[in-house]
């Protein structure tokens, strides 16, 4: 079953002067449990696509169906609530709330969702362990490395068990070792929790780990391939 379905989604900037097609009739389906990379050169529309799917930006045309309802038709307040309940976000940087510790950051969305205390604390512990930061639970973001911060962000995005996680260049600011490590954790959680991951990247080593790679150019989907990650890794 499709979790996300985009139909003829276009995003046009400056339609009246010099129109820029950030997205040009994008038709894509995403299924439950996918681990998908959106790739393409800078300016190809990766961020715009993730923002439109995540309800952070409207499309100029088309529809984005999530479980059969068009999120582009949701009003402001409902959209924020929808994001809170169903979508996990990881951004390139500045993901975490600086005044909260790693543990408090991971808890944050569950708190906004009013999870019962016991359930919330168990889940937080579980996620801290899953991203390998049990001993950093009380550290503030400023006391964590870039890689550790991104791992906390992934843990926070996943903690409340959203339907899917959108990550815009999550490894862009990381050295290759931290990037690999983050990918390992994302893959592990994708398998264990069956959560759909859609992330953008232009890092070849990250691309290799994806099971599906969608390539954008000038806002158009130019290729959409399934790849066997095991084989890809073996070839390395």
């Amino acid at each position, binding site marked *: 079953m499709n979790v996300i379905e985009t139909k003829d989604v276009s995003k046009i900037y400056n339609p009246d002067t010099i129109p820029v097609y950030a997205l040009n009739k994008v038709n894509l389906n995403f299924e439950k449990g996918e681990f998908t990379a959106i790739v393409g050169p800078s300016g190809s529309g990766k*961020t715009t696509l993730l*923002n439109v799917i*995540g309800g*952070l*930006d409207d499309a100029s045309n088309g529809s984005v169906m999530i479980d059969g309802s068009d999120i582009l038709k949701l009003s*402001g*307040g409902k959209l*924020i*609530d929808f*994001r*809170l*309940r169903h979508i*996990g*976000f990881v*951004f390139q940087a*500045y*993901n975490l*709330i*600086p*005044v*909260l510790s790693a543990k*408090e950051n991971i*808890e*944050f*969305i569950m*708190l*906004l969702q009013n999870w019962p205390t016991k359930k919330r604390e168990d889940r937080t512990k579980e996620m801290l362990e899953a991203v390998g930061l049990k001993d950093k639970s009380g550290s503030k973001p400023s006391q964590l490395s870039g890689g550790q911060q991104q791992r906390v962000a992934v843990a*926070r*995005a996943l903690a409340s068990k959203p339907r899917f996680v959108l990550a815009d260049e999550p490894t862009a600011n990381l050295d290759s070792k931290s990037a690999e490590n983050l990918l390992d954790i994302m893959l592990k959680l994708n398998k264990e929790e069956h959560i759909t991951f859609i992330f953008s990247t232009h890092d070849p080593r990250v691309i290799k780990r994806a099971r599906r790679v969608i390539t954008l150019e000038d806002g158009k989907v130019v290729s959409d391939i399934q790849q066997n990650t095991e084989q890809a890794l073996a070839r390395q």
Partner: protein
Amino acid sequence: MKTLLKIAWRNIWRNTTRSLVVVISLAIGIWATVIILAVSDSLHMEALKDGIEYKYGHIQIQNPDFIKNEKLTITIPNGERILKEIRTDDEVKAATARTEVSGIIASAGNSSNVILIGILPGAEEKTTMLKSRLATGEYLSQKVRNPIILGERLAKKLNVKPGNKVVLGFEGKSGELISSTFRITGLYNATQTRDEEMLVYADLYDVTKLAGIEGQYNKIVIKLKEPEQLATYLAFLQSKFSQPDVLVQDWRQANPELELISDMIYQMDIIMTIIVLIALAFGIVNTMLMSILERYKELGILMAIGMNRRRVFTMIVVETTYLSILGGAVGMLIGFVTVSILSYNGINLSLFSEALSGWGFSDVVYPTLEPRVYVLITVLVILTAVLTSIYPAVKALMLKPNEAISKQN
């Protein structure tokens, strides 16, 4: 909500310097307001006390025509009988009678416009504290003919001292000029410069005899045992004696200038408070806008991951509220301590006393402030802070998450 409060609290300490600046300026604003209000309040009380204790008593009875024309001959019908009856009332501590006429005083070298007040020696001292103001010489001594007491300032102007003679001229019964020699027995000083220059006191019997209106009064002045009984006793007197030509009033009604002082002080208090509040409001708006601008990306991410508008708004208002409560508490505390110290030691305002005493204020004031004024100021300051935080908070709400996140610093 608990998390929001926690985040807001920690947020204000991210930029300690800025938060401290806000807290300190709030504190200083409140402190200044407290001091200003305490001083003006005590000046006010002083002025009123001065009026009641030295001049007007609690209740005055006079002929309403006298208020309009201030003629010696416009007296209270049956004044003597009324005074006698009032003195027997339980509520009354003392009552006295006066005549009042404007005239000219002249010494060998100089002359001046004055108001000649005829008082009942014996009764006046029980009713007002006039006698306690005597600076040199004697009170209206019965040993001399036509005794009179002058203010020190007037004496200086006329170049006279106790023992000297002065000539007083004033209008008599049928418009004729009465002029007579009086002997200065003593000099007094007053808190109000104008009083010291204008008011001269003589024996009522001498004045009425000269004017040919023996046994008549222009004013009856009553001092009560308990000021709290003023309203009820006033009503009683009014129902008993009020007639077209007998007017019974309390000190406030009878002396509009006291009302004027009250109004003036009240307006000054309000203006001062408003100025302080406006200054605070500007400071707060500025600070909160800056703190929001710095956190643009962060707020974008908070909104992206699902913090709704209500929560973002609440967070910013709560941050401001924390700052204003801190500033309010500190300001109140130092304000309270300062007022306590001042009320013990007094503030010497003699530097400004020329200006102030013109309004009936004394040199040293002992400021005090009622607890409810402290509460009122605190509430006003916190209310101002919270209201002014609405603008920055609304600004924060208008940001679009995707634009805020992709914004370059």
